[in-house]
């Protein structure tokens, strides 16, 4: 019988722990349990059989850690042997019980953290799982259980590998702590939303906690999930007794606690660490008669990041529109110059100003959009925990970004054209996501709300053919500027209202289009935004840095009963008057003083005024550089410390931005002293030292090519050659990564003998630096500035 079908009819039971039972039978400490699939197959089979005779329906193969990081090229054989052992047990048990169990191919975490936090690449993780999936499927497993996942991103890699290489049902259980968080910080709702959108057949929780501690998380999962929920806890909490780990609840208590969870709606139950065939026997006895709680579709719309979910529904959400080059010359320039920092700052500013989701559009005719999109999404997810809206008409860029996105993204966009739906819907189905659907089709943008509603219906129907639910589609009601179409606003508003009321759908709008071509657009925008909210807008693409828009938003929520006790409004606007007053005294200071003291906000205010009277170059020469020099001297003398030096650098940087703008507007270009490559060497993922050096060098007018961290030697050499760079700075933090610094230096000297190399990092000394062939050892960030100045002057 098909396990998916059976799942609807009765509670299914997983087995319990494997490791401790193997240890009882002689597996030694430090010995890898998966080796016993081949070394002691009869023992592994016996344990599976005990569980089956105890009444479980699904045995999980002894393959938790069977991946190539631990077993290199032996993975296929180990997995095959493991599936055979489980199959053998199922057959032997069936003779005795007359009941045929299922074999679940078990896959645990890789044991490594994925980039950017760790050093395992996402695609590499997919490959690691792919190997297990292929071997297990060929060996005849009935389903795949991905378990003990503490990182949603790794779970995504495993699910993609399963779906791409097998048609078996896929179940995923994750490990949460008492606070309902994954070890990597994500919450339960975001995990459920991600896994459901990837199309798993069942999901839930295992390991980490006992059934008692799990209860609140299980209930949260049950409230959110529309697929069957799995609960496989430990036998309570562990403690150490005489060097052995023991768990604090016995089989009867375990079964009793589990019964409550089954009655609450868990559909598949079993055990994890510390549970034995006896736990499962009592669990089955107590719970097999319970009828499963019928599944209810929750119809909740979620987009997620690695940390949390944003629900799109009654309470409208803000999508920050600033990372989009249309009409923004500075962003265009940043994209062309690969200046990712500028984009990151735009992202963080919007978050600080109240955005819930960030739109990411990097489309420019002359750049490699897929490459840039992937890079921007990765980098943004490194600095912000907000979900992203992947905004592109380039299908390759869309797919690649959706694949590596950590979470369930918002996708912008599909429309009613056949071609568009056929390209976008398969991606949404595969990678998961909520998709923005523009209410237009081959006939163009319908002039009336009637026409737009018709297109929306068509889109919903077509999406359903792909298995994409209405809840995962946001209808873009489209607004045409009122400067050319006087009914532009009215039609959009009517469409919003009708999508909500007639179609029961969610809506989205790029609000500021309404005022295109008009003066003082902010005035119209904020009023139209209020009207749109009133007409049922669920998600607004706006500029969250515009006060008027946010005022409209916070006011609307307070007025519409969405902000209990006006808490959100008061938090936002209650203390603003006081803050403004405290920043006033700083404005009396000179620019040099502001920079030297690290007063960033004041430096910005002062330089704005100064630029009205003084030449930009003069400001740099007479105010900025002397201030930076003074700070540098004090730092070297030990009277100014690293945080102060950096605050000073940041104040200077903020002022420089405005000076650059001014120069740009006068058609002048800032003169750079030279190009410098900075890189943290291969194997090293601590980047902070290099980033300190970068900020300082940039303030001294050097163009820094930042290659990031974990950089292979070849890439440094290649970039140095291509960009004709005279100076390379390398950073390494650990004794274990200094050899890759040495190798990078060797390759540079060999291919590009004229290039100078400066090095720094915690474990380096002057002598050590000389030994590995560096031209200069920099004990701190200022030393690198000095060396650069000596080289380029």
């Amino acid at each position, binding site marked *: 019988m098909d396990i998916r079908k059976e799942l609807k009819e009765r509670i299914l039971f997983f087995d319990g722990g494997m490791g401790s039972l193997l240890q009882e039978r002689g597996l030694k400490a430090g010995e890898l349990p998966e080796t016993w699939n081949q070394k002691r197959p009869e023992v592994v089979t016996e344990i599976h059989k005990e569980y089956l005779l105890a009444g479980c329906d699904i045995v999980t193969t002894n393959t938790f850690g069977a991946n190539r990081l631990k077993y290199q090229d032996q993975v296929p054989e180990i997995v095959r042997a493991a599936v055979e052992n489980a199959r053998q047990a199922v057959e032997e048990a069936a003779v005795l019980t007359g009941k045929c169990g299922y074999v679940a191919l078990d896959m645990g975490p890789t044991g490594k953290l994925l980039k950017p936090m760790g*050093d395992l690449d996402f695609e590499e993780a997919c490959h690691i799982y792919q190997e297990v999936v292929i071997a297990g499927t060929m060996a005849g497993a009935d389903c795949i259980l991905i378990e003990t996942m503490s990182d949603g991103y790794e779970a995504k890699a495993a699910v993609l590998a399963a779906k791409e290489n097998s048609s078996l049902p896929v179940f995923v259980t994750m490990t949460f702590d008492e606070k309902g968080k994954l070890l990597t910080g994500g919450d339960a709702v975001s995990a459920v939303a991600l896994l459901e959108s990837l199309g798993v057949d069942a999901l839930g929780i295992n390991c980490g906690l006992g059934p008692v501690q799990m209860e609140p998380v299980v209930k949260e999962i049950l409230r959110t999930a529309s697929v069957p929920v799995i609960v496989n806890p430990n036998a309570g909490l562990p403690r150490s007794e005489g060097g052995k780990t023991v768990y604090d609840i016995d089989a009867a208590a375990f079964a009793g606690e589990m019964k409550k969870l089954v009655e609450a709606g868990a559909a598949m139950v079993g055990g994890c660490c510390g549970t034995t065939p006896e736990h499962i026997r009592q669990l089955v006895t107590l719970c097999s008669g319970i009828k499963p709680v019928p599944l209810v579709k929750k119809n909740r719309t979620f987009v997620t990041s690695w940390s949390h979910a944003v629900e799109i529904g009654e309470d409208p959400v803000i999508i920050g529109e600033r990372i989009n080059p249309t009409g923004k010359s500075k962003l265009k320039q940043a994209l062309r110059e690969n200046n990712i920092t500028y984009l990151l700052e735009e992202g963080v500013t919007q978050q600080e100003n109240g955005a819930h989701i960030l739109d990411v559009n990097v489309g420019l005719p002359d750049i490699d959009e897929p490459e840039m999109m992937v890079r921007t999404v990765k980098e943004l997810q490194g600095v912000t925990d907000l979900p992203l809206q992947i905004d592109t008409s380039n299908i390759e860029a869309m797919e690649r970004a959706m694949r590596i996105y950590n979470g369930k993204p918002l996708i912008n966009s599909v429309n009613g054209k056949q071609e568009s739906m056929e390209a976008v819907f398969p991606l949404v189905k595969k990678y998961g996501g909520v998709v923005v659907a523009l209410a237009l089709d081959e006939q163009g943008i319908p002039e009336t709300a009637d026409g737009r509603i018709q297109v929306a219906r068509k889109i919903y129907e077509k999406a359903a053919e792909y298995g994409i639910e209405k809840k995962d589609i946001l209808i873009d009601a489209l607004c045409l500027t009122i400067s050319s179409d006087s009914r532009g606003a009215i039609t959009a508003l009517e469409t919003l209202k009708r999508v909500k009321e007639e179609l029961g759908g969610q809506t989205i709008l790029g609000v500021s289009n309404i005022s295109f071509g008009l003066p003082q657009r902010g005035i119209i925008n904020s009023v139209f935004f209020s009207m749109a909210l009133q007409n049922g807008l669920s998600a607004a693409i706006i500029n969250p840095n515009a006060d008027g828009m946010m005022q409209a938003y916070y006011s609307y929520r307070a007025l519409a009963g969405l902000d209990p006790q006006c808490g959100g409004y008061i938090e936002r606007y209650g203390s603003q008057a006081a803050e403004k007053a405290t920043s006033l005294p700083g404005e009396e200071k000179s620019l040099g003083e502001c920079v030297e003291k690290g007063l960033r906000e004041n430096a910005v205010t002062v330089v704005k005024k100064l630029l009205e009277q003084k030449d930009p170059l003069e400001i740099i020469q007479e105010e900025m550089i002397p201030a930076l020099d003074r700070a540098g001297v004090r730092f070297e003398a030990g009277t100014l410390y690293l945080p102060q030096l950096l605050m000073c650098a940041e104040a200077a940087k903020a002022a420089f931005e405005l000076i650059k703008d001014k120069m740009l507007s006068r058609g002048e270009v800032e003169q750079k002293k030279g190009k410098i490559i900075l890189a943290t060497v291969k194997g090293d993922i601590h980047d902070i030292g290099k980033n300190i050096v970068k900020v300082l060098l940039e303030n001294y007018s050097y163009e820094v090519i930042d290659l990031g961290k974990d950089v292979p030697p070849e890439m440094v050499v290649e970039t140095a050659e291509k960009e004709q760079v005279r100076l390379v700075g390398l950073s390494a933090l650990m004794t274990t990564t200094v050899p890759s610094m040495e190798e990078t230096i060797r390759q540079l000297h060999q291919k590009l003998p004229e290039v100078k190399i400066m090095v720094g990092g915690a474990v380096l000394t002057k002598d050590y630096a000389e030994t590995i062939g560096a031209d200069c050892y920099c004990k701190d960030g200022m030393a690198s500035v000095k060396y650069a100045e000596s080289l380029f002057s």
Partner: protein
Amino acid sequence: MDDSRILKETLRYLGYGNGQPDGRTEDLLHQCMEELKRACSFRHICRTVPLELDQDHIVTELFRTESRNLGKNLKGCSSVLIFAATAGPGPDQLIQRYEKIRVSRAVVIQAMSAAMIEEYCDCLNRGWKEDFEKKGQYLRPRFSPGYGDFPLECQKNILAGLEAGKRIGLTLTDSLLMMPSKSVTAVIGISESRQLCVLSGCEACEKTDCEYRRN
């Protein structure tokens, strides 16, 4: 956990020596403290296992190695407590965020979260010390892989033996860096006799000209 000790250690890591932070830096320190308290999720895991010690040869259920420094530290012990502790991914996420956009804040968070995980370990140690002394056993100072000649390579077996990945989310990179980076693994000798302790950690290090050296 003691905030004043954390602040003191943070300043030492930031290179303050005997210097004092100015008002702006003080503000920054306090903001970072608040932010880190929200971001850290301290977890640990430990096991007590028998120790076989023959001079520099150290054998436990979790790892075996040769180390003169560790051998000296464990002399006279019959078992060891091996532990791993982490502040979780929160500090790394903050550092990753701020090193791109506000590096002054990143360096403070970097230093302060290092001070916090050390303080967390000190708290754990004090608890264990009391527990063991009730049983008439005495603890040595903690000693971590990478200290002196205790090979970093041992991290692999220690973390695997403690199931640190599954239990507390602590993993190793190929170059043996712990991730989350604000984490500690260490061995603590357990002996039946009270003994004035040999040097540990920072003081055991042979780099005597280090600007971060304690005292």
